[in-house]
């Protein structure tokens, strides 16, 4: 909660550099609960590899909301997850993940 002590000073211009104002902070500790995600990639067995490797860091929607992408771009995305973000993807699953992405949201 914040108490405005000098309203007058707040009414002056907040232009080029920060303007001096007088406000007193009473910081409240915060405790929240972030919603959890249960949605998985659809497609049953065909989605097993992507469900097994691609849900640790982000929701499936990060992938499902992407526009249709070429095989080359999907392949680069999967390899970027491994090299840049250290995704623990089983090497034998890489092809199945790319195949799923190309089949469900690919473009020529």
């Amino acid at each position, binding site marked *: 909660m914040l108490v405005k002590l000098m309203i007058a000073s707040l009414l002056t211009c907040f232009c080029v550099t920060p303007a*001096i104002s007088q406000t007193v902070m009473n910081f409240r*500790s915060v405790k929240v609960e972030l*919603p959890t995600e249960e*949605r998985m990639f659809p497609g049953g067995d065909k989605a097993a590899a992507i469900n097994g490797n691609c849900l640790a860091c982000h929701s499936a929607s990060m992938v499902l909301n992407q*526009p249709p992408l070429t095989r080359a771009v999907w392949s680069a995305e999967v390899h970027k997850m491994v090299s840049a973000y*250290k995704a623990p993807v089983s090497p034998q699953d890489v092809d199945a993940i790319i195949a799923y992405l190309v089949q469900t949201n690919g473009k020529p």
Partner: protein
Amino acid sequence: MVTTQGGLRRRTVLGGVGAACLASSLGQAEPTVMLPLGGGPEARRLTTAFPEKGSMILQRMRPPLLETPFEVFDQGVFTPNDRFFVRWHWSVIPESVDAGAFRLSVRGQVNKALSLSLHDMAAFSQVELAAVNQCSGNSRGLFMPRVPGAQWGNGAMGNARWTGVRLRDVLDRAGVKAGAVQVRFNGMDAPVVPDAPDFMKSLGIDHARDGEVMIAYAMNGTQLPLLNGFPLRLIVPGWYSTYWVKMLNDIEVLDRVDDQYWMKTAYRIPDTPNGRVKPGDTGFKTVPISKMNPRSFITNLTSGQRIAAGAPAAVRGIAFGGDCGVARVDISADTGKTWHAAVLGGDEGKFGFRRWNATISVSAKGSETVMVRCTNTAGVVQPPEANWNPAGFMQNGIESLPLIAT
């Protein structure tokens, strides 16, 4: 076009490109918004599931990516905290912060390392400023051809009044040593995998000490929502949000240029005017993204809306200059053939949104396109043809809105 159903305001206006409408079918628990993303997918759920947040467009649950429904920008020059967009990279986000125990550390190339409580922060000289916070990738979903990344519409931006302290004052308390090159900022969020790159951003030492960069402890007059960075957030006026590190708890003065992933590899733009390259171009030099460019949006009309032919119609919206103020906003009611100056609203500071309004009249019946264009105080004008780059950053093409005169 406002109807109320299920307690939610059902109007969505997408400034400019394409249509936005709300689809809702009976028996569907969550309403859906359609973003005009060519090639799809366009549907996004609206959610009220996040703490300290009202109805938001759900781009991603974990880690949260929440977009501000465009109607919010028609409601005022400041974006309310509970509708302000949310963007995290890694999903290890503390769900509780003890205001008494929290400490901000200042270390590295300094004479005296500091560990500052919120009480200590409040004791520094206080500053306040209005500034637009916009994601580097705002409007990425509108890029043509499309590119991978968070598929935002135009709602990954907001304007708030930030209250806090000058970063310079905090650095001066620690005493920056000669030889300091950059200052690196880290927040309390963390990667899921231990060896993955923690999210950190750096600014040049002179920029950090320019007296404008600040550490905010309040946003629109109250402490920040946790998802917008409680208890402290870096404010870098005129620069993209990637630098506005949330839950800031560590400042390290470096004697070198920061070469970690989020500076060296990610958030880089082509070193070309307005970050523009042609689709397919390769081999261009890249630099870290930095200053924002000018933008403007119509907020009171939706794509495909009917207006009366031959009668004056009120048009209003928001504009911002990017790294400086708004000089002028022009509106065209004939697809850019002729332009007329809009009337600018009150000036809350050069880094904030500026409201504008205008009256247009379309004489002939049929479809017509209304366009809005901002010129900033440095003379930079929004480009008629949208800029493009492979990472989907810095979009600021002139927005156009098709209307039907009847």
